[in-house]
């Protein structure tokens, strides 16, 4: 084994600090100038590039006092070579919803991290947290103290509520059908305990997108996906539509032709939409932002169950409540969550996401347990197999009228 790392050389990684795309190697090297931890990270990473294998060990349970999550423990499996990354824990810091910062706020974070860690971050992690990448166990409490002093707190990890996230929404988007940032913040504050102290069978993620474009990929990645939508008619400015046409947009082909339900009609001068057939897919609005807007009766569709494939296969969230008006304090959503969580905590298996739980017990049983009426909005189509578990039948001698529960 060549040992580029021992003599401090990193020939493999050096090849990646050039090129048009901003380089992570440059970042590590920049941090390495003032941090031995980052220097050893660079060395260990070079070793991984040579050997084609990672050098991290399973993290034990590390964290801050009174919290069960927010820190991912990491240890090098070659500490003799890279003593400064013997510990290399990450800290998940809960981001402000929408990821809006001031330069001062960012500098404050940088300063804390410079004092106590590698100086390397992820802005941001896939769940949405600010990720402080690499520190030692003994630094955790001091970092936590400084963070909270500055108004920051930790995000989730383990079997708890994970850091909720939201699309930019009303802060900068004309299509936001509800206040994604406010809901995200409200849920985060409401569930601080569930977020910091893992007590679920497995993780539970919230993501809030203001419209069906789903700019935080909630439907693919969150156990509860809250997707903005509207109930009434798309708002149409016919003159503006005409203008798009005049500027050369092929409305017939590119707009109507791409409507999934073919519910639009363009006669060259006016655009007709059959709003009862429209599925609120956003395409026509996306194509003509100046001419079309979502309707006025706005709210959100509450969807459940998205997750990555481990181990029963990936799921995209499915509809639980087709439309809900969204007003603080969002009581219906909270009541729903608490009902679902109680059930899931009682009956869910360890490492069983709620989407997997629903598949195991059956959607109908799940709905009955959380006292929700079944609705055709929940399904793409009714069952196509005849294997129905009828739960009532008449027995000899029964009064024909009333079947008796089995």
């Amino acid at each position, binding site marked *: 084994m060549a040992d580029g790392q021992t003599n401090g050389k990193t020939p493999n990684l050096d090849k990646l600090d050039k090129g048009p795309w901003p380089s992570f190697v440059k970042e590590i090297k920049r941090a390495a100038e003032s941090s031995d931890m980052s220097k050893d990270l660079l060395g260990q990473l070079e070793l991984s590039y040579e050997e084609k294998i990672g050098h991290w060990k399973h993290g034990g349970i590390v964290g801050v006092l009174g919290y069960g999550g927010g820190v991912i423990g990491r240890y090098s499996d070659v500490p003799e070579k890279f003593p400064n990354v013997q510990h290399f824990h990450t800290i998940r810091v809960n981001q402000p919803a929408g990821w809006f910062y001031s330069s001062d706020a960012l500098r404050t974070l940088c300063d804390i991290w410079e004092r106590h860690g590698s100086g390397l*971050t992820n802005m941001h992690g896939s769940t949405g947290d600010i990720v402080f990448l690499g520190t030692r166990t003994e630094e955790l409490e001091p970092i936590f103290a400084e963070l909270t002093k500055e108004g920051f707190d930790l995000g989730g990890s383990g079997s708890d509520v994970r850091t909720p996230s939201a699309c930019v929404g009303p802060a900068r988007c004309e299509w936001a059908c509800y206040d994604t940032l406010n809901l995200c913040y409200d849920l985060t504050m409401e569930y601080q305990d569930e977020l910091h102290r893992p007590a679920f069978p497995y993780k539970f993620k919230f993501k809030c997108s203001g419209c069906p474009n789903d700019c935080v990929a909630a439907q693919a990645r969150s156990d509860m996906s809250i997707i903005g939508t509207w109930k009434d008619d798309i708002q149409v400015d016919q003159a503006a539509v005409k203008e798009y046409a005049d500027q050369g947009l092929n409305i017939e082909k590119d707009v109507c032709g791409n409507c999934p339900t073919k519910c639009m009609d363009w006669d060259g001068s006016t655009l007709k939409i059959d709003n009862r057939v429209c599925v609120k897919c956003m395409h026509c609005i996306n194509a003509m932002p100046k001419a079309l807007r979502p309707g006025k009766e706005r709210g959100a569709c509450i969807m459940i169950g998205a997750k990555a494939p481990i181990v029963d296969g990936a799921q995209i969230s499915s509809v639980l409540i087709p439309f809900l008006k969204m007003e603080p304090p969002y009581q219906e959503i909270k009541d729903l969550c608490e009902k679902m969580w109680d059930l899931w905590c009682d009956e869910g298996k360890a490492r069983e996401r709620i989407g997997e739980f629903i598949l195991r017990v059956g959607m109908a049983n799940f709905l009955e347990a959380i006292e929700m009426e079944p609705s055709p909005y929940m399904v793409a189509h009714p069952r196509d197999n005849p294997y129905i578990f009828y739960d009532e039948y008449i027995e000899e001698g029964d009064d024909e009228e009333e079947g008796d529960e089995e």
Partner: protein
Amino acid sequence: MSQTQRITDIGPPRYDKWFPEVIKKNYGKWKYHEILKPGVLMHVAESGDKLFSVRIASPRLLSIHTIRDFCDVADKYCEGHLRFTSRNNVEFLLTDESKIDPIIAELRALGFPVGGVGNTISNIVHTQGWVHCHSAATDASGIVKNVMDALCDKFESRDMPGKLRIALACCLNMCGAVHCSDIAILGLHKSPPKVNHDLLNNICEIPTVVSACPTAAIRPAKVNGKDSVEIDEDRCMFCANCFTVCPSITLNDPLNDGVSIWVGGKVSNARHVPMFSKLAIPYIPNNPPYWPEVVDAITNIVNVWSANANKYERMGEWIERIGWPRFFELTGIKFESYHIDDFKYAGLSFNRSAHIRF
């Protein structure tokens, strides 16, 4: 110090704490937007106010020094206001249109491409890889760097058929939800787990390990005197769930770990309902530092798509229109038995109609 003195459970800063004035004033009152040029969005409020967002690429893995550089730029042009996107790009928020070109020049000078807006390729959502995760079958940042070096000109343009979302996950846990991306790069193991029989019983619960396996490939067994487990290689599908629950089992294997390529997923409800990514290339060996085979494979798929897709057609929508046989034909990718599903819902992935394109 005792828990009482400590500040806990305060949650994150409120989202509006660092809003620019123009957002505070026009919150929820935006009327429409326009893309002025690559990477530059103009949002116009009902009040007539305008907000300009200049988006730059980010490696996501950022040193505090680079973040401070961003802060300096933000101070100089944006009264210190900036944000990050859900795909880890950075957006500088301006109200003074005249500052757009200067800030772009300065950001470029710092080495950050401006773009990713509109119908084009944005940043690659990715994960930790060898930089931080014990579970990684490949590196994340390295592949992303190489792929985006090759696609950077597209990031800086805005003339693709539709949005193209690329994601990378370094193991089957799929942090970052690559399962619904136009193109997904997925690190994977393809050799069976190795068990440290001496340690296993001290560190892990054997029943937990056995039950962690979805294919029942793990059986309790005595190995040279020690209680441990044995693995039925033919039943193993390399999911690494056993490793996740038990450190003394490992799947990491420099000889066999590599990546697979998946295509045609999407998340948005625009036009087509959300779709999963489907297998395109089952296995490419890890070849750091450049991963040339991965870069070529993706560049090829991107080029074939952008040359053939209709306006607005995402990867998956395009393939649905032309059919999978044509996709394999046009990309020159070989269709193998690995492409045919044999998991839970396999039966529903067969072509159960005579709808065929010749």
